[in-house]
């Protein structure tokens, strides 16, 4: 795991002038999808890389220890071993980046991963997930309990009402407190961009979250009506780049950013799609559903 983002003092001048042009970002999003494709070995390698970015997640009311256990095994073995062998990638230790569950299931996940003999981090959603509409006190307590149970990554949701009413100082303070409550665990801040109203707000919320010391900023909980979209991702990536420029870090958002310590994809059905693609790449055939183990 990489070091923590220590954050900075709140500097509202970083967000006061920013304007994001919505139609222009939509056009850019369309272009990105049409301008960069990868094929053949490149496609296979990129897909395997994507696997290592996935937070393999289950966030359902009916989660029990048995399906958590299954999920953890899938996280350890995301792609069928014979397919990896065919690609000469079986010794690369390809696993998903983390397993993500509700706080009440953290113990199950930690136990299952230990049994599987691997050190994939367990991420727990917290802080009133998914709506964030609970008292700050209980939200902080939720984080502390999840950390106690063994979660090493905490996915908090931000208080959208603070964004929509422009209370940036209050938002900064809240996330600062989340940061403190996390202790050594990584703080992953979910912006729930589908509920922020504008892309300009997405940029501002991203910047505040990073100033307050988030290690990751994530688009969405998966529970809003609109979740991760290309335009939103573009705006957040631009915000991350600006944050690093401002804090004196020379890194740019290029290939250097593509490692699991710095980049995550919170989509779980994606994994089975990737595995099917890899199957096709290796065998030249399209897989039946039963050809690939479920998670």
């Amino acid at each position, binding site marked *: 795991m990489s070091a923590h983002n220590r954050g900075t003092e709140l500097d509202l001048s970083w967000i006061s002038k920013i*304007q*994001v*042009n*919505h*139609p*222009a*970002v*939509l*056009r*850019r999003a369309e*272009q990105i999808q*049409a*301008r*960069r*494709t*990868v*094929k*053949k*070995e*490149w496609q*296979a*390698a*990129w897909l*395997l*890389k994507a696997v290592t970015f996935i937070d393999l997640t289950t966030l359902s009311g009916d989660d029990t220890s048995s399906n958590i256990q299954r999920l953890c095994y899938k996280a350890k073995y995301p792609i069928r071993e*014979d397919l990896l062998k*065919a*690609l*000469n*990638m079986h010794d*690369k230790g390809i696993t998903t980046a983390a397993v993500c569950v509700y706080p009440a299931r953290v113990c199950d996940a930690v136990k299952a991963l230990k049994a599987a003999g691997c050190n994939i981090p367990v991420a727990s959603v917290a802080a009133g997930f998914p709506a964030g509409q609970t008292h700050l006190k209980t939200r902080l307590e939720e984080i502390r309990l999840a950390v106690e149970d063994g979660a090493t990554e905490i996915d908090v949701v931000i208080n959208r009402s603070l964004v929509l009413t422009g209370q940036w100082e209050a938002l900064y303070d809240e996330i600062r407190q989340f940061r403190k409550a996390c202790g050594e665990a990584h703080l992953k801040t979910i912006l729930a961009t589908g509920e922020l109203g*504008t892309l300009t707000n997405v940029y501002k919320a991203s910047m505040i979250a990073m100033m307050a010391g988030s290690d990751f900023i994530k688009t969405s909980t998966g529970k809003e009506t609109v979740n991760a979209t290309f335009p939103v991702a573009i705006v957040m990536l*631009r915000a991350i*780049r600006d944050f690093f*420029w401002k804090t004196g870090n020379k890194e*740019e958002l*290029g*290939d250097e950013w*593509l490692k699991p310590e710095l980049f995550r994809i919170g989509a779980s059905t994606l994994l089975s799609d990737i595995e099917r693609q890899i199957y096709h*790449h*290796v*065998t*030249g*055939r399209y897989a039946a559903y039963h050809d690939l183990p479920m998670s």
Partner: protein
Amino acid sequence: MAATRAGPRAREIFTSLEYGPVPESHACALAWLDTQDRCLGHYVNGKWLKPEHRNSVPCQDPITGENLASCLQAQAEDVAAAVEAARMAFKGWSAHPGVVRAQHLTRLAEVIQKHQRLLWTLESLVTGRAVREVRDGDVQLAQQLLHYHAIQASTQEEALAGWEPMGVIGLILPPTFSFLEMMWRICPALAVGCTVVALVPPASPAPLLLAQLAGELGPFPGILNVLSGPASLVPILASQPGIRKVAFCGAPEEGRALRRSLAGECAELGLALGTESLLLLTDTADVDSAVEGVVDAAWSDRGPGGLRLLIQESVWDEAMRRLQERMGRLRSGRGLDGAVDMGARGAAACDLVQRFVREAQSQGAQVFQAGDVPSERPFYPPTLVSNLPPASPCAQVEAPSLVGGPWRAEPPGHPLQVPWPVVVASPFRTAKEALLVANGTPRGGSASVWSERLGQALELGYGLQVGTVWINAHGLRDPSVPTGGCKESGCSWHGGPDGLYEYLRPSGTPARLSCLSKNLNYDTFGLAVPSTLPAGPEIGPSPAPPYGLFVGGRFQAPGARSSRPIRDSSGNLHGYVAEGGAKDIRGAVEAAHQAFPGWAGQSPGARAALLWALAAALERRKSTLASRLERQGAELKAAEAEVELSARRLRAWGARVQAQGHTLQVAGLRGPVLRLREPLGVLAVVCPDEWPLLAFVSLLAPALAYGNTVVMVPSAACPLLALEVCQDMATVFPAGLANVVTGDRDHLTRCLALHQDVQAMWYFGSAQGSQFVEWASAGNLKPVWASRGCPRAWDQEAEGAGPELGLRVARTKALWLPMGD
């Protein structure tokens, strides 16, 4: 487990995360070339034309240099054959109802849809442009163009009543344009009933393929004929007797030369010159999105040329940093690779840009290049040039030598065009200065404005002197939006209603004939003013006619301090008018320029009110005007009718201008596109000799109504009526709106036609004068309307106040306003 197909490299790619090649198969393009035995001729009258004993030029893959085919070069007789085929086809094609043409165009769109892979791979293979841009952009737009113009054709009888197709159109395309440029022009031409002969540069197979697809549709084989040949064929095609209009796109200097050589010839000329675009980045912009706008404009194979980038000084550092960082992530490579931003455009384009960059560097400019670009020729990296002030010699091409005396039509030196893929960035301080810098070039193509403040964006959008303005976007196009330019970018239009009128003429007007006089000496035409002597005492009509040149709102003595006699119909001396000269024209144009911003800024309603006030003043002066007309030989009744009709014209144009411009709704864009009708600027009008009052007023009224200011030369036979009107204008109008200069007609015409700061010129007079005006207009490429000695029925509604005047009196601007939050 089935046999594995995985390559050995996945391991390394997993670590490096590099991009790999995504080649698009061009087998079908090669197969099509094979059907022609790798030898392309011309496509004329629905058949391949492969005459013997012709030179051929190899068609090469611009990246590998591999010979793909050889292309026969047309000669004069091939041109004649193609024009003849188009002329024969015109008879049938234009006689069919619009619905039939609409069906044919729709069928062509369907054929393109069915064979689009062939079209896009062939185009990308031969031009080296990124296949993504051809496939997702050009080919789709080509089909939309056909569908849009099919709809226009089907409603032609109602919507375009009073207009008829011109005839055979000669279309000339330069080497760096895509086949889409041809589609923009042939679609409206074919839709309204014209037929086309296109001369494409050697080794451009895509237009030939299109012609073949169109030709094989059946019943109208000769409507689209494509020849490939060298630039030396351009004047030959342009001067073919059957050609009614030449639509030329290419370099400004070639356009200028063609304008000169076509003076007095039969064909009309529409010019679309230059490829450079402009981007204004203000300090309220979404800078990252604006940087993407720069990529769209210069580094994505969308636009044909380079970009001038103006950045507000307060965001200069931030914008340059983002720009340079973005450039580093651009990819260039073989056009047929699906994952590149930019292809390559062959050795010639590479030489051009190398020369430009070397020049710029030697002038002290900073050059930044970046991106993932193959190092070998003809690839060239995205290039950002800064610190190149407009006054540096690099920004100007060499002035042509000063031989030819002060009356050369060639202005001294033009700013060099920014070539692909170069962006020249320079700073500005305020929005006002941005407009000054942006408008301070002879170009008037397209520009984009990046600002999140609505008021500022509109201020800049309206203030830019260009044909197209995009607000917070760059390079959007749609068949229903007119695209064109002004100033030296040429004033021809394609797309939208304006594109249709390019190929139409008012029904029933006599065919435009050649008025070429081979021995007209351009150097001496109207140069000297014959001296005028006193012709005896005035036998004073009362009240005495006003004396002087009406400039800047008052009567002034002429610079030459001499006068010319005016005689009435029976040969008696009617009075003396001032003898205007070059200096008086200079003063009049200056006065008109001073008045222009105020007048153009008035609402149409305010302008109409003043025109109506002038109409009322004319009616009050009716008896004087009628008696002056009587002395010119008119009957009293007719004279009074002429005065009344003149007043009506003023009122009619005042009312008509209220409804100009409209909003367009474009597929795939949220938000409106405004089609604005803007004044041209200072309009020079040389009035006909006949109808001394009515013609003067009929020309004055639309010009002023649309917000132009004018310099007018009244009827030479009887300028007194115009001067009478000036007396009223002096009291009704602000100073400088209309300036009237009397004197020797040819001399004044010469001064106006050669004036670089006159934005348009209308000439109603002799064939020789028309030829001179057309020739001289090449200087600043002002649009001209010359009567070529044909009289006009000014008292008829169609000719005296028809839609043709409304069309010529203003220029279109398309203002794109994408919306969303």
